């Protein structure tokens, strides 16, 4: 190849490609911006529309707070009954609270068992612990429905609690086990050498170290329970939780009342997460 030939076609392509990649950081920043817009614009639109001064359409017609005022005053807005919404919120909180209490204790104990002991069939058992997280919720919900039917248990918030605890245990156990992996067990041995019994060792040495893991796992269990629709839908019978109440509203169409409920759910959950972040650092 002589100098007069100039670069070949392939070389030219590579140079052009290289130039594109040189400006790649700008393109990447722009692309990331689009993804963040994609994530937040729908949420922002819901909140904006809850202040929309229009009874039916999704078209913006001016700012109003009348829907909030009416709902908070206990009026029914476009089929949304605030009393029913409040009752479902109370059920949601009750179920989530019981779920967190039970699954935090059981899940932490389970994490200890998995971290500290080897036993025959452990691999299979670990698989069982992961399964409620991985399995499609619809399969879990319907299989529990069949089971409650056969055993003859009346469906209601108590069956929903049982179901939520089943997956809550898994979430807590996985998070706490991750925390336990980096735990220095010689600290426990030192405490025992100094005369502490098992419970005292746990109370004064182990628990303070794994506390962030337990809190993170509990928050996750709370969020999963509070937000769960599919499993609850099949096992709760005639009672409503907030997601189920919301689902039945959405089924009937878009309305200002639904927008207000949606915005309230969004704002409250995001505030709780922000608070948890502020207290405990990252919560995942």
């Amino acid at each position, binding site marked *: 190849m002589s100098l007069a030939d100039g670069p070949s076609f392939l070389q030219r392509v*590579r140079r052009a*490609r*290289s130039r594109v*990649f040189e400006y790649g*950081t700008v393109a*990447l*920043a722009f*692309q*990331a911006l689009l*993804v*963040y817009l994609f*994530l*937040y614009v*729908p*949420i922002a639109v*819901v909140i904006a*529309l809850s202040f929309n001064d229009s009874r039916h359409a*999704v*078209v913006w017609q001016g700012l109003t707070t009348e829907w909030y005022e009416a709902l908070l005053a206990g009026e029914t807005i476009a089929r949304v009954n605030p009393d029913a919404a409040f009752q479902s919120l109370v059920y949601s909180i009750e179920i989530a609270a019981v779920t967190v209490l039970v699954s935090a204790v*059981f899940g932490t104990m389970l994490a*200890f*068992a998995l971290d*500290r*002991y080897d*036993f025959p069939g452990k691999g299979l058992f670990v698989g*069982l*612990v992961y*399964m*409620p997280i*991985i*399995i*499609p919720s*619809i*399969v*879990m919900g*319907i299989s529990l*429905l*069949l*089971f409650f039917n056969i055993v003859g248990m009346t469906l209601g918030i108590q069956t929903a609690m049982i179901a939520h*605890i*089943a997956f809550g*245990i898994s979430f807590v*156990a996985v998070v706490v086990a991750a925390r336990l992996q980096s735990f220095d067990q010689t600290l426990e041995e030192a405490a025992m050498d100094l005369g502490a019994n*098992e419970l005292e060792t746990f109370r004064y040495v182990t628990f303070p170290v794994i506390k962030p893991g337990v809190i993170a796992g509990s928050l996750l269990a709370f969020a999963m329970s509070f*937000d769960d*629709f*599919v499993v609850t839908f*099949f096992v709760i019978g005639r009672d409503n939780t907030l*997601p189920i109440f*919301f*689902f039945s509203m*959405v089924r009937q169409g*878009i309305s200002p009342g*639904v*927008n207000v409920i*949606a915005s309230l*759910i*969004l704002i409250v959950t*995001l505030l709780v*997460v922000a608070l948890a972040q502020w207290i405990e650092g990252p919560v995942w």
Partner: protein
Amino acid sequence: MGNEHSVDGGESPVRRAIRTVRRNQWTGLVVNITPSAFWLTVFFLIPLGVMFYYSFGQRGAFGEVLLGPGNVGLQQYKLFFVPQDASILQAIWWTISWMVDSVVPFELGLAAGEPTPYVQLTIKSIAYGLVTTLVSLAIGYPTAYYIAHVAPARYQSLLLVLVILPFWASYLVRVYAIQILLARNSILMNALGVLPFFEAGQSLMNTRFAVLLGLTYIWIPFMILPVYASIEQIDFTLKEAAMDLGADRFEAFRRVIFPLSMPGVVAGSILVFIPTTGAYVIPELLGGTQSQMIGNFIANQFGSAGNWPLGSAGSFILMGIMLAAIAIYQRYGEGDLA
């Protein structure tokens, strides 16, 4: 030892027994594992077993479930996979040719028959899962790369939190948000009217696009996070080394950086594929009758269609798809789930 024995000497036999039990190496295991093992067995494993047993049953004339000795068999799975009056080999061939036919743009007419509607639905659900996974990867990878490597270090954790935050916001409300955006005369639909081929004010609800958009919107954080974790650990001096050795930026990315980020890509893909294929709420709210997925089929069998054994069989076929995906992940991916 002698000393210890003399201390023990003053204890009652009951206390000594308690002490022995407490010191036994298995006590901790039994105490810690029993509550969870009980709960997971009784309220998770046994219900699944019941459902598995039901999937071998038969529907009676009035929608009841027959589980007698004469009724238990593989008939529901046969009904699911094999069209009437066809052999198993024919069913396989018809399924393959149907898949080929729906991919190529022209009519091939390979086979004499079609697979059962249930098989068609299952393949469609897997396709929804795969497309969502690929779209999430195409959109999520550059974003994860940006957060991990390009963005200023002090903004990294903020950018990550912003990816996680929607995951904590209510699932149903976010699906509803997509519904609002795609509804007739919504802000987005009117804005899209500037496009030459798009008529302002129409609705994109109840379409395949709506379902895919909803699935991607909900599950994309699950792609970004593992990919970010993978890229964040890469030693980028390797990229410089590749470029010193003559690779251009593209080649250095393709041959060095991307392969090193594979564990995150595989983990993200499985985390997106599994929930999207088993989705129930999103096709229910965003998709019309043409965009139903296998999750809706299962729910229907337990609801209006009233065929519990067929629904149970469908559930276990869906679980089989999940297990296959996880098996592929463990074969080609690295490390554990989660």
